[in-house]
């Protein structure tokens, strides 16, 4: 009863030039971590606003101080995410720390309209809000709606993302650092036949990660393609490595 489409978290986008790019939408947990970091930053900014309040209150008067405080808190609360997202190419400090980025679903940069929209709807995502919270300047909630929407949509979008047509994606490759030090020196050999893109990638993966596998596992992996590489066992592994090196370096 296997489902027809294989489950994946990727989103493929074909650009006008026929080039395919892959977006990797990020799930709720790294986003929650990024949110926690951003909240700490917000608190930091609030403390700075408080400092400003004391300075202005001392210099000008307490009423001016309160005015400045309310204004700064408003700007921080409503502007923090929008300003960072638009001016720092979709990365608030928290997202940068987690290696995330906000983009349009087309993969394009997020602009004012989309960012303002997704952050206004943050209120809906926060719901249910903490009770009796209207007495406070800033609101906070349990993020139940956002989490539900995030888990229920294919591309992990919260309500704000759905409305503003944006995504949060992983920005940096997380497996790229694997092992350039563990590369095996083999003589590159051209494959005897035309390989599809996926098959080429498989050969490259085999070469890159061969050092992490035991010899017997390498031989086992290379055994189905004995007909392609024309050898089995140890010799087969060496030939497969050669083909992988050839594809990678050419």
């Amino acid at each position, binding site marked *: *009863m*296997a*489902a027809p489409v*294989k*489950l*994946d*978290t*990727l989103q493929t986008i074909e650009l006008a030039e026929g080039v395919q790019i892959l977006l*990797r*939408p*990020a*799930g*709720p*947990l*790294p986003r*929650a*971590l990024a949110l926690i970091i951003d909240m700490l930053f917000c608190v930091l900014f609030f403390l700075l606003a408080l400092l400003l309040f004391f300075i202005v209150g001392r210099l000008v008067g307490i009423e001016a101080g309160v005015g400045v405080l309310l204004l700064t808190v408003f700007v921080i609360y409503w502007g923090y995410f929008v300003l960072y997202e638009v001016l720092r190419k979709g990365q608030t400090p928290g997202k940068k720390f*987690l290696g995330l980025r906000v983009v349009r679903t087309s993969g394009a940069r997020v602009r004012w309209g989309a960012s303002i929209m997704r952050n206004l709807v943050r209120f809906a995502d926060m*719901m*249910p*809000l*903490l*009770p*009796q919270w209207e007495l406070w300047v800033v609101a906070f*909630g*349990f*993020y*139940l709606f956002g*989490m539900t929407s995030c*888990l*229920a949509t*294919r591309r*992990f979008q919260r309500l704000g993302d759905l409305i503003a047509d944006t995504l949060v994606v*992983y920005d940096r*490759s*997380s*497996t790229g650092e*694997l092992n350039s030090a563990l590369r095996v020196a083999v003589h590159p050999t051209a494959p005897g*036949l035309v*390989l599809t893109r*996926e*098959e080429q*990638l*498989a050969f490259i*993966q*085999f070469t890159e*990660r061969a050092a*992490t*596998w035991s010899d017997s*596992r390498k031989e*086992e*992996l*290379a055994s*189905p*393609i004995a*007909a*392609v590489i024309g050898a089995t066992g140890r010799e087969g592994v060496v030939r497969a490595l050669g083909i992988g090196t050839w594809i990678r370096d050419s």
Partner: protein
Amino acid sequence: MRLEDVSAELRPRGPWESVDLGFAMTRRHFPHLLAAWGLTVVPLWLVLLATTHWVPLWLVLLVIWWMKPIYDRVPLFILSRSLFGDTPKLRDVLRAWPGMIFRRFVPLMLLRVPWVIVSPAFSWARSFLLPLVDLEGQKGRGFKERQKVLLQSAGGTTAALMVLCGVYEVFLVFGLLTLGGQMIANPAGAFQLGEAFMDTAFRHGQMPAWLVWSLIAGYLCSMTLVELFYVGAGFGLYINCRTLLEGWDVEIAFRRLARRLAQTAVAIVAICCLPATGAADDESADAIKQVLAHEDFKVHTVETWQAVPEGDYKGPRESGLLAKFGNLLFYTVIIAAVALIAWLVWKNRHIFQRTPSATAKAKTPRTVMGMDVSPDSLPADIIAAARLRWQEGDARGALSLLYRGSLVWLIHSARLPVRESDTEGDCVRHARALPEASPRNYFEALTCGWVLVAYAGRVPAGEEIEHLLTAWPFAGKDGAS
């Protein structure tokens, strides 16, 4: 286990990405998982909760919490089998359920002792390590070694996963309760909820039973939802570790390549066996040239010219005088139109400014304070009619006639801005604008008498009414004077 049948895309992922894959797996099978959970775990909970008759509640709750690894086996059973293309039916889950409870029950429960006896890692990476116990059947030494290998690649993420899921479990309990409280139409009910919390938390009050049970219900709901995704995430991490450690993705790709070659092998052999045809190249090239030289393949180009009527684009500019006149006319019309609009606006400027006199003049009220104040509703000789009524003993009717008569005079003769909504006091205030003193004073006295009769039911003294009847200062009923 046939790797080719795997129902998710396997490739090396980062730890968070594999958590996401786990979430996606849970999402795909969510209704199924929820149904299986409801058929297996929920009845167990009900049985456990029923024992609160004999066992203290906190102990029952501790047992419910402690048995989490047992519950985790249900979603893991479904997810792991459906990953390899064989989603178990609910019947299969039910059949496997007793085994899930009792298979290696004691070691699993011991693993749950945090930090102490067997494995501190297990309490941090439960859903990630459960596949080792359940799917690989690792025990003792083997389990320890295997766990070390796996945790090396995903240890940090499992801890973060654990903490976040724990936080979310709490969030969900209170979020659900808050949501429920906000759904209560009666705000006092919502308030009661918050108060009860505060009482228990800060004022050492006794938690009411309804709150205890709604907390328990909220916690069990929250555990259900979080646990399903937590197990999915752990399983995603586990699958990714195996993919990295054993090259599952490479194996799948290589097997697919082998199958593709086996299918095309026959075709390849056939192509390779064809005789070489290089010698025929020159002949065919000549033949192609011959064919292309034929008239049919000649490319024709046709160039056509089309006359454009001269007047179309030169006319207006050539006849300069006319054009100038036309321009002049155009601008004159525009200026005239603007001037006309400005004049109209100026002429009707009263529309735009609200002067009270204008509005008051615009509509004289037909009734004031519910009384008919149109001149036609009054008798020709008000004084005589009023005196008649007074003599008949109807003081109220007499004063009413007088009052209405004076109002009519104020509205129609003195043209005071009396409105339909004005009260007696307002009318007196309007009357103060009268230039002469006698109608002013008379109206005030009349209002006094009328108010007493109308609202207090007190008939003024005889001489007072007599005075009002004789001192009538208004010339006629419609102010014809």
